Structure formats: C-alpha cells, structure tokens
C-alpha cells in the first residue's frame, strides 16, 4: 500500500521523539539547582557558569515570558523549581501573592543588599537595579534635568516616544507615580503624557532611541541599560541610535529616579533549598554583580560594587526612596489607568 511508507516514517518519528525526550533531564538531583526565570538566561549565563565552576552545582534554567508562577502553583509540591528570577518587582510580588514562594533568612544577603531593595520578610531580593530614564535628542534638547511630572508639559507636545503603557517597565513607573501623587493626579498626568506622544506606543525601549535619530521624537522613555547595549553592541545601526541620544535621569519632584529591579525569590517547595540559597548569595558576590553591570550595564544592587565606565556615563543615579512594595501594590491601579486614558490607543 502506498501509505505504508509514510506510516513507517510516522512510527520512526514517534520513536525518535520519545527517545529524544527521554534523554532530557527530567528530575532534579541533589547536586543541582533549578531556576525558573522571566529573565532571558543568556545575560545571566556567565554568572551561573561561574557558580557551577565554583561549587560544582549544576544550574538548570527554564525561561518563559509569562506564566512561570502559575506553573509553579500548578505543579504544587512536586515542582522542581528552586528559584524564580524576574525583571520587575510586580512579577516577584505576583509570585508571592500566588503563594509559591518562601522567605529566606540569610545574613549575607541582608548585609549586602540595602534594605530598600529587599523584602523586610525576606520574600524577595533584588539582584540588580535599572532606572527608567529619558533619552533625549542630542541636537534638539538642551535640558540638563527633568522631572517625571514635567513629561506632561505642553512643551513636549508631539515629541515623546514611549512603549506600551501595559509593559511592566511603564506600569511600574506609573504605579510609583500613583504611590506619590494619588490616582486622580496620575490620571491627569497620564493624559498629558498621552497628548505629548509623537506616535502610538509600540515597539520596545530601543525603538525610542531609533525614532529620536529619525527625528520622529525628541524624548523617549527607556531603561538605562539599553543605552549601554545600543552603544556597545555589535549592531552598527543600534550604535547610531545609541549615539544620537543623551541620557537624563529624571526625578520625581520631591523624590529620586524611578528604579526597578531584577530580583529573585525562593520557591515554596524548593527541592534543593540549600543549593538555591548558595546561588542567591553567589549572585550578589562581587564577581557576579560585575557580570551584570559589565555585560548588561545594569546598576549592581550591592553598593560597594564598582561601576563600569558605560554605566558611569549614565550620570549619577539617585534612586527614589519609595519602597518597591508600594510600587507593586499600585500596579493594578496603574494598568487600569493606562486603559482608562487610552494611553496605548
């Protein structure tokens, strides 16, 4: 029969599939540590490799854009996850709210990380800081300092580029605004920023720099480290975007610059708890902190860690003192406001 050949092929495919899958590591062993991460692991890989080299503990990672905390909750006590890494305080808080985490008590962590950047109960710890800053056109903007409040000024009408208001980086900034000024004032402000948009929110932070170079806008809101990535990257185009802009660390009128974190939590049913804590402590060591700021141009969370020149070039960072738990708490209200003022429309 004509069909036989294809059936055989199908069987081979199936068998090959099962064999290949069986060969994948499935269960956690004691000399391992398993990380679920919302953060693309490519950038933290060097730090994880250094950890394995130093301790002999193998690190397994699972990266996904969404749903990892839900996966941990579904998996329950069988979950292989030891740690969860996220690049936004909201994501960490969400995992805590879902009940998939456990507090960590570590003198090393408490000593190295400033109180503002860890949970008082030890539920989450920041690993790095990233400020939400302004990229401005080198040739068209002369300001030396800016406030977030001022982004709603009419002088910026049609001149601001920003990504979707529903992106975590912006939601957190708006949540911080709510924590400082209340919802009513935030709504007015958001409407002002909306009116100042040069284009519909889209793309990512780098596109803001690109659109500045193109002349489509004069000011873009973006995370600090993208500037380093653009300027030092291999991509010639991106280097041009990065060099077309100047950075300003805006502040709240009565505060500092909005800072978000990349952070880590311990899974509630972590099967390799000791290894996991060891890794947490390793990640705030000088070597690992150096990797983050050297490769990804983030601010180290540990005060004493030296800053690479690129990060220094972003100017002096004065982080806002608003507790990050406050930011996380106002995230929902921020997301609602974004829809309400039609920020992304």
């Amino acid at each position: 029969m004509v069909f036989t050949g294809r059936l055989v092929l199908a069987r081979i495919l199936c068998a090959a599939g099962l064999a290949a899958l069986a060969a994948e590591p499935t269960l956690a062993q004691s000399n391992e540590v398993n990380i679920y991460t919302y953060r693309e692991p490519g950038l933290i890989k060097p730090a994880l490799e250094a950890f394995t080299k130093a301790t002999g503990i193998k690190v397994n990672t699972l990266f996904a854009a969404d749903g990892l905390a839900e996966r941990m909750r579904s998996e329950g006590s069988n979950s292989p996850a030891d740690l969860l890494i996220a690049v936004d305080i909201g994501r960490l808080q969400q995992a805590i709210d879902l009940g998939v985490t456990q507090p960590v008590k570590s003198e090393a962590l408490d000593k190295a990380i400033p109180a503002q950047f860890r949970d008082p109960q030890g539920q989450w710890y920041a690993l790095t800081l990233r400020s939400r800053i302004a990229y401005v056109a080198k040739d068209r903007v002369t300001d030396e300092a800016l406030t977030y409040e001022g982004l709603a000024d009419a002088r910026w009408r049609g001149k601001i580029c920003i990504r979707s208001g529903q992106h975590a980086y912006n939601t957190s900034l708006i949540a911080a605004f709510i924590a400082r000024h209340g919802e009513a004032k935030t709504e007015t402000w958001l409407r002002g920023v909306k009116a100042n948009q040069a284009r519909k929110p889209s793309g990512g932070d780098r596109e803001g720099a690109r659109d500045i170079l193109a002349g489509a806008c004069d000011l873009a809101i973006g995370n600090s480290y993208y500037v380093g990535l653009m300027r030092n990257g291999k991509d010639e185009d991106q280097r041009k975007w990065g060099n077309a802009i100047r950075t300003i660390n805006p502040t709240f009128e009565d505060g500092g610059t909005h800072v978000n974190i990349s952070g880590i939590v311990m899974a509630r049913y972590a099967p390799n708890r000791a290894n996991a804590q060891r890794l947490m402590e390793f990640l705030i060591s000088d070597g690992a902190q150096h990797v983050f700021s050297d490769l990804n141009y983030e601010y180290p969370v540990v005060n004493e860690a030296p800053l690479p020149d690129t990060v220094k070039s972003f100017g002096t960072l004065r982080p806002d003192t608003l507790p990050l738990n406050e930011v996380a708490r106002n995230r929902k209200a921020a997301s609602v406001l974004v829809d309400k003022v039609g920020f992304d429309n």
Partner: protein
Amino acid sequence: MTASATAPPTARRTASPSGALFRHDRFAVVGTALVAAIIAAPVAALFAIAASGQDNVWPHIFGVVLPNALLDTAALLLGVGLVVTVVGVVTAWLVATCRFPGRSLFDWALLLPLAMPTYIVAYCYVEILDAFGPVQSAYRHLFGFVSRRDYAFPEIRSLYGAIFVMGMVLYPYVYLCARAVFFMQSAAVLDVARTLGASRTAAFFRVAIPLARPAIAVGVALALMETLNDIGASEYLGVQSLSVAVYATWVNRGSLAGAAQIACVMLLVVVALILLERFGRRQQRYSGSAARPHDRGSPVQLAGIKAWGAVAACLLPLALGFLVPAGFLLREAAGLIARNGFDPEFLVFVRHSMTLAGSAAVIACALGFLLAHAEQHARGRALGVMVRLTGLGYALPGTVLAIGTMVPLVALDAAIDAATRSLFGLSTGLLIMGSGAAVIYAYVVRFLAVATGTVETGFHKISPHLEMAARTLGRTRIGALATIELPLLRPAVATAALLVFVDAMKELPATLLLRPFDFETLSTSVYGYAARGSFEQGAVAALAIVVAAFLPVLWLARTSRIPLPREMVALTSWEGASH
C-alpha cells in the same frame, strides 16, 4: 483511539444509506467522547479558572477596554479576513484553472508564507519599513528629506500594518483549501454553467466559489483564529486587540481568572461564528463527485496582459509574505554566520523542534482522522458537538491555553506519582510536565482543529456511495476504510499532517512555558534573542524554522493535488455517473 476502526460487525447488517451505518455505533461515540474529553480538558480547566474569579473585571472591560479593543479587533479580523479570502481564492483559482508563465512554480511557492512565524514577519517589516529601513532611507535620499518629520509615510506599526502582515502570512490557509477544491472540482459543473450562458467570470463567482465555500470557510476560519489569538505581532505593531487585553488583565492586573473569563467569552464568540457559518450551509450538499483527471478540463491558457496580470497576482503575495521577509532574514543570518561562525548547538534546537512538531503532527492527524471519520459516518448531533469541542484550543491565546493545559497534566502527574508510590514506593515527580510530552499535548490540543478540519474537507469530497459499493462487494468496514477511504484521503491527511507540523514548528507561547529545563527549540531561541532586544541575532534560527517548514510545504504542495490512483478513478467515475 481506534474505536471507530474496530466497529462491530453489527454495522454490516444495516446496509441502508451510509449515514445510518454508524448511527448506533457506540464505539464511535465513546471513542469520540474520549478524545473530546482529553482534548477539551485544558479548555474546561480554563473555564474552571474563569469561574473561580473573585474580582469582577467586567466593568473595566466593558467600560474602558472593549470600546477600543473591540473596534481594533473587529477591524483587524475584517481586514485580515478580506485580504486572505481575496488573495487565497484568486491565486488558488489562477493556479488551478489557468496556464501562465511560472504557474507550476507558484503552485507550491504560494504556500511558503506558511513557514513564516507571524511575529518574525512583523519584526522584519518594522526593520524594513521603519524610518531607518532601506525603503524610507531611499525615499529620503530620493527626495532630499532630512528628518522623519519632513514627509508622510504609512506607518507599519499600526492597525493597517498588522492587517498587511497577518494577511500576507495567513492567506495560504485559504489558498491551500481553495486550491484543493478547485483542482477536484469537476469541469463538468463549470461546463454546464458555461453552456447555460455564464461567462468564465460568472461561472467562477456563481458556481466555483459557492461549491468551494465550505473549504474556503475552513481556511478563513483558521486564518482568523490565528489572527485573534495572536499577541506577539499585535503587541509589537501596537494593535490593541482583545488578546492584548487578556494579557494585561492577567499579567498587569494580577487576575488570571479575569483573563480566563475574557478568553472564554472570546471563545464563545468564535464558536458562535463557526456555528453560524455551518448553519448557513446546513441544507447544502457539497460532496458530489470528485473529478477524474481527464474530466478536469484543460486549464485556460492565458496570454498577453492577462498572463502577466496572473503572474503579478501570484508574485505579489509570494513576495510580500515570503520573499521579502525571508530575504531580510537571509541577509541578517549570512552576516551573523560570517561574523560569529556557525554554532553547532543550533542543530540540537532543530532536532527538538522537529521531534516535537513531528510527534504532534502524527498524533493530531490520527485523532483528526478518527474524529472526521466518526462524524462522517455517525451523524448524531451529540457527536458533532463533541468533534467541535476538540477544536476549541485553536481559538485561545497560546499562553492562556498553556496555563489551562497544565491543570490536567499536573493532575495526571500527581495520579501517576501516587500510584507508583503506593505500588513501588517510587516517586516519579512530574513525569509529563517534566518532559517534552506536555508540549506535544499542548500542540495537539491547539492544532487538532487544523487536522480535523482538513481531513473533514477531504471526507466531504468522497461520496458515501463509494464505501457502500465496497461493502456490497464484500469488503469489511476496515477493509473499505483501508482500501477505499484512506487512499482517497491521502492528500487531505498529508495536508493535515504538514499544516500541524508547520504550525507546531512556529508555536511559541506554549512551547516556552511547558518545556523542560534547558530545552531550546528554534522558536524559543528566536524568542530568546528577541527578548534581549536583538532579534537580528535570532535570524539564523528564524531562517531555520522557515527552511524546516519549507521542505514539508514543498511536499504538501505535491501531495495535495496528487492524481488519484487508477482504480480509484474508476470507482469515482462510477459513483459520479450514478448521480
């Protein structure tokens, strides 16, 4: 799984019209119910999650989100629907019934955009058409503009951009379905129309299209569902579709239940639309006769301006949906390999992708065949409903579906774990969730609709009389299935397998979330680069998806119009004569 194939001999006694053959066949019903239960479990889980919601998301959704999201979504669906229908049907018609330069090339090449993941095409077009893309740069250079503000240029990051990108990538669904039907349509039908005084154009609109309607509807439905559940491209292009609202509700407002509620309502709307379409053609019979090769009528030779018009009509979608984005990727990939060399780890990703997609294709086809077969032979209402239930996964946003998928899988894992513990004192942990099996399951749940729909279309082309004839001539049910229906369905089944394979190769959200530790596929590795903001570096993997999907698409093009074996032709013609 083979419930209907191992039908009891009692069926033989009811030698009455084919529809009745299986009416009381409990095996078919039970088998279908079982498949439906397994496949619909994630959707059911999602409804359960939706029902568990405590905070009411609807006032916000109705008051603030819907007025805008609904408009954007409706405009997007309408636009994409229009584009894929016009492009798909026109190109299919040209290729199937006309002769013009490059026809045999276009015949398969028009399928190529299927190989392109939508979000990658969106990235490519933003690169190409944005302010610094080659197009606008040339435009500026040509007219001496300095800044982006000096001139007007259509913005790719817009609703129109999204309609353009999705229309150009998704039209092959319609092309594929329509082309198969146009090839099989008996020339006699068209000849009759012509004899009755209809022009070629009139015959096309009043005979060929209405006859092809079920197939076109399947293609359009698939394309629109893909559009509806897309998040990646929509978000990147700045379109506020409902899926983006689902996402914001879940991730930013911390309400998975609320997100599930919106997703479920969207799902019900999709179901209503599908039912409406089916209701619209409930009284019509389309099976009729498949054409014999010599009955197909010779293709019309186009000449002069008409021929070049046909070439242009086929070349344009091919270029926009495939050549341009693939060319862009090729350039990026070549540059990357020249700079960094070729990373052999990459071949592992290829293996992972092929394994998962291949397994899913085989399983989805087997199940799709079973379902379509059961539905074809037992026309009970309950059965039809169950078959439709299995297609629901296709209409849900991928990540949301993945969340639903975890629920039954983890429950099963827990049961296995408990059983092995009590029997052998061994803990298996998360056996399924911890292996790639979860991903395969999610693919099958998601893409079964594609397989069932395609096989069903194939069944519609086979007259039930064929099987009856075989049975009269002493074949058993299985015998008739094996010697008559399967061979006749070969193109349809092959098409189904390849569609699922290609779709699974491109799938991202479920793959990301359900995969095991340290497990990369081509699509997750592309996404990894995109997440780092340097999707250009993922060009090699993106191109590999295209190439890996390219070969099956070639094969697909060949199989889906393969001539029927000689014996089949004899039977078909006999059957056709009896009408």
